[in-house]
């Protein structure tokens, strides 16, 4: 992710002198922690997927023999793409607005964006159920206004899941994008205009390309989050909205089939890595153009 942020067009010279030579040591505790809580479990998971209950590839074979698992994976991927795109479309104008608003207004806008952070995803998802449920606020309002005669079920649709995920993930997108947009020198826009570019060309040729590093960072965060989402789809989705994370949970909790759970997790991890690498590749090409 570091790489995406740095791949951008801003021409900051890299300081040639380190602050002080021991700085690397300060990062050591975090590196150790990451090794213990991240690298080790992933290793165990990988090992499990090939050895539990007996050595061999049978867990992966099972995955291919039952197409339902790959279907769920594909559906999760589609969900991630849709939610990332929707978050980007909703979040970009917000981030842009925060850069042009007066500082005080921008601070309030960013603050409001973060209020939901104080509650956990579970609470926020339940809140949406309260709003969208049969006896929820939305139905109440629509009935009162006479727009509908019977309560409508807004829950358990794919669109509801997507809406909720966009709402939950928006801050993760807006913040890096806002940070990226802030570094764009606004005199470049004037310069482009003065050189004959109408407003939409200024946006397309100057503003958008310069905001890409931030956009990629934000999109990457959202995309990776989407792949692992299960609370929101579990609570708000219907039977068609099962994600790969939900299936994995079921293996560990319900079926107690750790080997198969590990194999599914490995595939999920591999897919995420491939997607991230592809996005990084695109970002790099774009900034070298």
């Amino acid at each position, binding site marked *: 992710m570091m790489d995406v942020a740095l791949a*951008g*067009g*801003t*021409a900051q*010279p890299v300081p040639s002198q380190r602050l002080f030579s021991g700085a690397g040591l300060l990062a050591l505790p975090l590196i150790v922690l990451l090794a213990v809580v991240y690298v080790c479990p992933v290793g165990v998971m990988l090992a499990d997927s090939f050895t539990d209950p007996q050595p061999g590839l049978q867990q992966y074979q099972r995955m291919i023999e039952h197409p339902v698992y790959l279907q769920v994976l594909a559906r999760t991927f589609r969900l991630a793409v849709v939610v990332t795109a929707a978050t980007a479309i909703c979040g970009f104008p917000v981030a842009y607005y925060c850069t042009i608003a007066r500082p005080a207004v921008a601070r309030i806008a960013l603050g409001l964006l973060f209020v939901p952070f104080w509650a956990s995803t579970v609470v926020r998802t339940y809140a949406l159920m309260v709003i969208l449920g049969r006896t929820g606020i939305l139905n109440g309002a629509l009935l009162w206004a006479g727009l509908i005669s019977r309560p409508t079920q807004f829950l358990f649709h794919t669109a509801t899941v997507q809406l909720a995920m966009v709402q939950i993930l928006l801050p993760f997108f807006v913040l890096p994008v806002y940070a990226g947009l802030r570094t764009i*020198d606004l*005199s*470049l826009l*004037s*310069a*482009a*205009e*003065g*050189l*004959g*570019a*109408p*407003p939409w*060309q200024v946006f397309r*040729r*100057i503003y958008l*390309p*310069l905001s890409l590093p931030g956009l990629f960072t934000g999109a990457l965060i959202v995309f990776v989050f989407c792949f692992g989402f299960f609370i929101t789809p579990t609570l708000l989705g219907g039977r068609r909205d099962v994600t790969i994370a939900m299936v994995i949970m079921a293996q560990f909790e319900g079926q107690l089939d750790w080997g198969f759970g590990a194999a599914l997790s490995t595939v999920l991890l591999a897919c995420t890595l491939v997607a991230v690498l592809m996005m990084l590749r695109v970002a790099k090409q774009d*900034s070298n*153009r």
Partner: protein
Amino acid sequence: MNMAADLGFSGAGVRSGTCLVLDRLTRSYPDGTVALRGLSLSVPAGRIVSLLGPSGSGKTTTLKMIAGFDKPDSGSITLAGRDISRTPPHMRDIGMVFQNYALFPHMSVFDNVAFPLRMRHRARRDIETVVQEALALVELQGVAARLPRQLSGGQQQRVALARAIVFRPQLLLMDEPLGALDRQLRKSVQSELKRLQRQLDLTVVYVTHDQEEAMFLSDEIAIVQNGQIVQCGAPAALYDAPESVFVAGFLGESNFLGGTLAEAGAGRAIVTLPDGRQMRGRSAAPMSAGRAVSVLIRPEKLQVHVASRAPGREVNVLAGRIDLVNFLGGAVEYEVDLDGPRLTARVHLRASAATFAVGDPVVLHVEPQDCLVFPTP
């Protein structure tokens, strides 16, 4: 360079007529700052006109108005006979070089320079030729493929210039374009700029803090003070006949002697200094006797003589003592203490010129036509 003529990318001889007219522009900001108070200016085609003035006097604001990035509260802007006051910036056909250059960091040098042509939907083949030509003009052919951050400050400055002139705008605006360059480089870029301006017959409005730069580059200098142009004219005219103490003080170096007007008439004035000595000079404005005045004397107009060999003249002779000697290379500057007032005299070093040391008694002399008398503001 024949191709240049074919594409219309070369000078067409000095045009005549007026390119740009600013008529009584005003602009105030919501916080109450008045940036422009009725600024008027006329820029002849094919000339460089510099806006010179102290910080905050409204130079940048004026350029923004011309470019269209800001709108005047009242007044009009006419470019080549067309009122452009309400025209959006991208339709004004004006090139601009920003102080920080504003090069597009994600585009190569070539793409930066090609940008205005692409926005004008020029044919691909044309673009290639015209861009290469513009880069050749600023001697940057070799770096077309680089990104701006891979260039030195001077090279970036030249890319910005190439980009601003590649589409042959009717007018070129430059806001302190050399501010970020070191002195050595500034000098050479100034000469280069002047050559290009003549070669391409550009009309330029140039903003600078630097009076030497303004005098070197400009056909005309407009002195801006407080959102107005207080005097406009050829550099020599402004230097020799400033209309106010402000202009005199801003352009070139100057000595001022305070006094009272003893006699005035027919453009001539006699001033009594506080110690009773009298000076003769030209009056810059009609004034009546008894008024407080300032006498302007340029340092190079003062002659320094050995005290014992005073010139056999009675007028404008001031005795004093050398207080400080500043060596400037080709010239030397003497600060002379006149028992109260101090004057700076600049003497070019020639083999025959006498030199003085600190403490030497001297006599200063200045011709009456080189003493300009202003009412003290």
